[in-house]
């Protein structure tokens, strides 16, 4: 659905191949492979406990994998000598529970990483904070503290905070699951605008209608494996009975 300005030789932004991951005796990822190309939106779906969050967290090295390979923006994530902070400058991650820093204003939340990590000047960072907040429709909340914002606004501010680091890929883990239905829409709209701008994204979501509209590719996880994958159309005409049952339940 988007103009993917990619030549066939360009390596994928995110690539997982045959990734295995266990927590103790529990095998969570059992040979997961998928790729995300530049400008693509990949939507991860599956039942609760099927390993979606774990897969996403492995991409940003919040979990280490047992075997297989993950390459993100040229970083070999599975390499023990990985430059973790360089990886995380290229990857933005947004969690279900926003995790804004409660003691800082929205502006301070957003300028913290650009100033301390990238070393850009305070005034430049503030200018950039204004830009990313405008992008998520919160230009008037600069001086507010997180607790003064609604859940939807906090999640949009968290997205803005990630954007300020100018990541090459964004990861979203059920970012609307903690929100009332009427606040979900405003967050999804922001993500749609990002996709239209060409941001590469991997997102876990239970909003099937939204997934149909935004996904370039859908990955259905089941029992730690990619059970079915394809364009958004597989959500309306699934090939496997498991996906049929999953979308049928309207989850």
């Amino acid at each position, binding site marked *: 659905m988007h103009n993917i300005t990619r030549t066939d030789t360009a390596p994928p932004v995110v690539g997982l191949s045959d990734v295995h991951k266990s927590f103790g005796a529990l095998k969570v990822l059992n040979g997961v492979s998928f790729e995300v190309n530049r400008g693509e939106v990949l939507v991860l779906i599956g039942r609760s406990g099927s390993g979606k969050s774990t897969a996403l967290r492995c991409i940003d090295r919040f979990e280490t994998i047992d075997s297989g390979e993950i390459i993100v923006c040229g970083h070999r994530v599975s390499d023990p000598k990985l430059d973790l902070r360089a990886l*995380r400058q290229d990857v933005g991650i947004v969690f279900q529970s926003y995790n804004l820093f*409660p003691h800082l204003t929205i502006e301070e939340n957003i300028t913290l990483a650009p100033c301390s*990590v990238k070393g850009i000047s305070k005034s430049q960072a503030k200018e950039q904070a204004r830009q990313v907040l405008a992008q998520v429709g919160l230009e008037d909340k600069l001086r507010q503290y997180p607790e003064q914002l609604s859940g939807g606004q906090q999640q949009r501010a968290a997205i803005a905070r990630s954007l300020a680091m100018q990541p090459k890929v964004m990861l979203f883990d059920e970012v609307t699951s903690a929100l009332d239905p009427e606040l979900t829409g405003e967050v999804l709209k922001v993500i749609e605008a990002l996709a239209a701008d060409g941001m590469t994204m991997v997102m876990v979501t239970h909003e099937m209608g939204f997934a149909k509209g935004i996904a370039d590719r859908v990955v259905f996880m089941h029992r730690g494996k990619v059970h079915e994958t394809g364009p958004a159309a597989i959500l309306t005409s699934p090939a496997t009975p498991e996906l049929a049952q999953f979308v049928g339940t309207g989850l």
Partner: protein
Amino acid sequence: MNLNLDFAAILERWPAFLDGALLTLQLAFIATALGTVIGVLGAIGRRSRHPVVSRLCGIYVEAIRNTPLLVQIFLVYFGLASLGLKLSAFTVAAAALTINVGAYTTEIIRAGFDAIPRGQIEAAEGLALSRAQIYWHVVMWPAIERVYPSLTSQFVLLMLASSVTSQISAEELTAVANYIQSDTYRAFETYILVAIVYVVLSLVMRAGFWLLGLVIFPRRRRLGTPL
């Protein structure tokens, strides 16, 4: 039984009381400032990934919390003397009080660190902040804001406990009182006055901490809500 109180002889010694009170405040100030630094470092140490570091910090805290302050003061006093170090009673008192309050502060600040949700740290890690930056910006300030009331109470308690340093003749408020009561034979009056001065010092410290809190916690100043 008739109570015969005469404050006149005591009150005319007011410059000595004032000196003692100022010295007590100085001791409290030094131990509070250095104790805060020790507490932050100790709390980081107790949460260290290196078991030797966390164990050592744990031993420090437990050793201090399970021995009397007076014994700690004597240990510092005679310990330094046996090393051939000739330090003033004031320096020894300040050192001993700092070591003492540092242990309590370590425990309080560690509790504050532990109360920071894991998600806060993950969000900061996801933004590529370094470990030191995360501790400074994301963990330490909200942790201290959260435990600020316990922390400041501990420092007021320390100021009151500093009266014990009169035992090594640090010229703080209680030592001054001991001297004046033996000089004037007005023991009860002397200690009534001293108790009042300690109350005033406590109030001064609490007011100071309240003002400091307004300066270092801008969110609380603006919203008035606890973190």
